[in-house]
C-alpha cells in the first residue's frame, strides 16, 4: 500500500516539474519581467541594471532553478495589473471559484446519483426516457449558453435572481483573503445561477456514466448470485451494485476536476464572478504574463494533487488495486 502511494506521489512531482518548466519557458520568452516592477519611463541603462540585479542574464537552468525554488516557497512573481505578488492575487480570487465549484459539485452529486441509479434500474419508464433526453440536450448546450439562458429567464424576465456578481460577502478571516458568499442570503442567491450553469455541463455526463456503469454491474455474475442468495432488492441495488458502480465513477470524477476548472473560466465570464477564471482572462487580455504563469502553475498543481489523491483514495476503497499497485 505504501509503495503504491509513494509511486503515485513521485509521479505527481514529476508532472509538476514538467509543468513548471513549461510555465517558466513561457514566462522567460514572452513578455518583459521588468515591466511590472518599474513602469514605462525607464532608461535603457536603468533597465540593464535591473536586469542584472534580477539575475535575468543567468543561464536558463539557473533561472529555472530559482523559479522552482521561489515557487516552492510561494513566490510566483509580481502581477502587472494588480501590482501585488501573484500569490496574493490568486489566493484572494480563489475562494470565489472554490465556492462556485463546491456548489456545483453538491448539485452534481445530489442530482446525478439518484437520477443515474433510477435510469439504470428502470430504463424503460417515461421518466427515464425524459431524463435521458434531457441529458442529451444538456450535453449539447455549451456552458456559457446555459448561463446566458438562465440569466435571461431568471434574472431579466422573471427577476427572481440576480444576474451577476457575488452579492454580499462576508470576510471570513478578517484579512481580506476569504470573502465568502455562502454566509448571507444575498450571497447564496448570487451563487445559485452560476452553480447551476457550471453543474449543467457535467450533470448529463454523470447521469449517463452512472447509468451505464450500473447497468453493466447489474449484469454481472455476482449480482445474479446475490439474487440467488435471496437478498432484498434494495440491498442488491443500493449496497452491492452501488458500491461497484461508485468506483469507476469516482475515478472519472477526479479526472473531471480539471475540466470543471476550465469551465469556471466560462461561467465566471458570464456572471462577472470575481474568481480565478475571471482573473485569468484579465491577465490574458492585459498581457500580465507573470499572473498568467502563476495561474497555470497553481491550477496544474491543484490538478495533479487532486488526481493523485483520487488515485490513492480509489486504491483505498478498491481492495483489488492495492495488492498489484496498478489498475
Amino acid at each position, binding site marked *: 500500500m505504501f509503495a503504491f502511494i509513494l509511486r503515485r506521489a513521485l509521479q505527481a512531482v514529476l508532472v509538476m516539474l514538467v509543468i513548471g518548466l513549461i510555465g517558466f519557458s513561457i514566462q522567460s520568452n514572452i513578455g518583459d519581467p521588468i515591466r511590472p516592477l518599474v513602469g514605462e519611463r525607464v532608461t535603457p541603462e536603468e533597465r540593464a541594471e535591473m536586469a542584472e540585479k534580477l539575475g535575468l542574464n543567468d543561464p536558463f537552468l539557473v533561472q529555472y532553478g530559482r523559479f522552482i525554488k521561489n515557487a516552492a516557497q510561494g513566490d510566483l512573481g509580481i502581477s502587472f495589473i494588480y501590482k501585488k505578488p501573484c500569490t496574493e492575487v490568486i489566493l484572494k480570487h480563489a475562494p470565489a471559484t472554490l465556492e462556485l465549484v463546491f456548489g456545483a459539485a453538491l448539485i452534481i452529486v445530489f442530482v446525478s446519483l439518484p437520477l443515474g441509479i433510477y435510469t439504470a434500474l428502470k430504463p424503460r419508464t417515461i421518466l427515464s426516457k425524459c431524463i435521458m433526453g434531457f441529458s442529451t440536450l444538456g450535453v449539447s448546450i455549451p456552458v456559457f449558453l446555459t448561463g446566458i439562458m438562465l440569466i435571461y429567464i431568471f434574472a431579466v424576465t422573471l427577476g427572481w435572481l440576480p444576474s451577476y456578481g457575488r452579492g454580499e460577502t462576508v470576510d471570513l478571516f478578517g484579512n481580506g483573503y476569504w470573502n465568502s458568499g455562502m454566509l448571507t442570503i444575498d450571497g447564496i442567491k448570487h451563487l445559485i445561477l452560476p452553480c447551476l450553469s457550471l453543474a449543467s455541463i457535467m450533470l448529463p455526463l454523470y447521469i449517463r456514466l452512472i447509468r451505464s456503469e450500473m447497468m453493466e454491474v447489474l449484469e454481472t*455474475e*455476482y449480482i445474479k448470485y446475490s*439474487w*440467488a442468495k*435471496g*437478498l*432484498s432488492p434494495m440491498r442488491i441495488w443500493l449496497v*452491492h451494485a452501488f458500491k461497484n458502480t461508485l468506483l469507476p465513477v469516482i475515478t472519472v470524477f477526479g479526472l473531471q476536476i480539471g475540466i470543471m476548472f476550465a469551465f469556471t473560466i466560462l461561467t465566471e465570464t458570464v456572471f462577472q464572478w470575481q474568481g480565478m477564471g475571471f482573473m485569468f482572462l484579465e491577465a490574458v487580455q492585459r498581457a500580465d504574463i507573470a499572473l498568467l504563469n502563476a495561474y497555470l502553475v497553481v491550477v496544474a498543481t491543484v490538478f495533479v494533487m487532486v488526481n493523485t489523491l483520487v488515485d490513492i483514495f480509489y486504491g483505498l476503497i478498491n481492495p483489488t488495486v492495492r495488492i498489484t499497485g496498478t489498475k
Partner: protein
Amino acid sequence: MAHLLEIHDLDVQFALRNGSITALKDINLTLEKGEKLGLVGESGAGKSVTGFAIINLISKPGYISKGRITFDGEEISALSDEKMRRIRGDKITMIFQDPMMTLNPVFKIGTQMIETLQAHRKISKSDARKIALDKLRKVQIPSPEQRLQQYPHELSGGMRQRIIIAIALLTDPSLIIADEPTTALDVTIQAEIMDLLQELCESDNMSLILITHDLAVVSQVTEKIVVMYAGKIIESGLTHEVIANPQHPYTTGLIKSIPGIIKPGEKLEQIPGMMPTLTKIPPGCAFNPRCNLREDICVKVTPELEEKAAGRLVACHMVKGK
C-alpha cells in the same frame, strides 16, 4: 409421500426481437428429501436454465411459459417475487460455477456471509458471525476468523468455492442446486470439492441437484440421473443403472467417451457432429443427424419420453420398452 421437488411439464422460452425460442420443453422430474440428482448434458442443452427455473431466476428475456414447479408441497413457479425471495437462498440455495465471478470483489467474505443470514432470519450480527464461522469449519477451511476479514481475490480458487458452499449451507437448506461447481477449478481440487459436497449432503440429509457435463462425477455422487439434449430430457433413471446400461444412443455415446469408465485398451469413442443450437433444431428427434440407429421415423416424429423399463424413461424410437 410428497416429493420434495417436483417439476411438471415445464417449458421455458426466450423472447427475442424476432420471435421466441424454446429453451426447455416438457421437463418433468422429481426429487426426494436427501436424494442426489445429476442433471447432465452438453453446454447449451438446458441444464442451467432448468436449475435457474426452479428458483425462478432465469436471465431475461427468458420466462416460464408452461408448467408447474412444486417444492415442499408449495407451488413456487407462480409465487410473487417477494415470496420467492424468501425461499431462494434459504430453503433452496445455489452454487454457481466460477467462484471468482460469484463473490463480489469489493466486499469482505464476512460481509457477504452475514448479509445472507440477515436477509432470511432476524439475527444479530454477532450471532450470524458465529454461524458463519461454524459453516466455514464445516467446509474445512483453516483459520476461519481470518477468512471473514479477507477479500475474495486474496484466496485461492478452491478456498473460494468452499466458501460458496459454506454460504449455501448457512441457512440449512433442504435443497442445494450446484451448477457446474467444479468446472472452474483445478483438477486436483475438483475431487476434494465434490467429496466435500457429497459428505455434507449425506450428513445433513440435504437434497442435491448436480448440474454438470462431467459424467464421471455424476456416477460417483448421485443416485438419480437425468440426461438432457437440446432442451429436452432424453433419458432418466437410477444413476448406476443408466451408467452401466444406457439405452438412448446419446447417453451411450457420452458414456463411451469417458476415459475413466472405459477399460484401458478400449477405444475412446466420439459422437460425431454437434448439438444443434436452439434455433436450428432438426425435425423429429433432435439427435437424429448424429445417431447411428437412425431410421425414417426418427426424422419425422419426435419421440416421447416413455418408461421403457422399471424406473427408466427414454425418449427414443429405437429403444423397445417392456
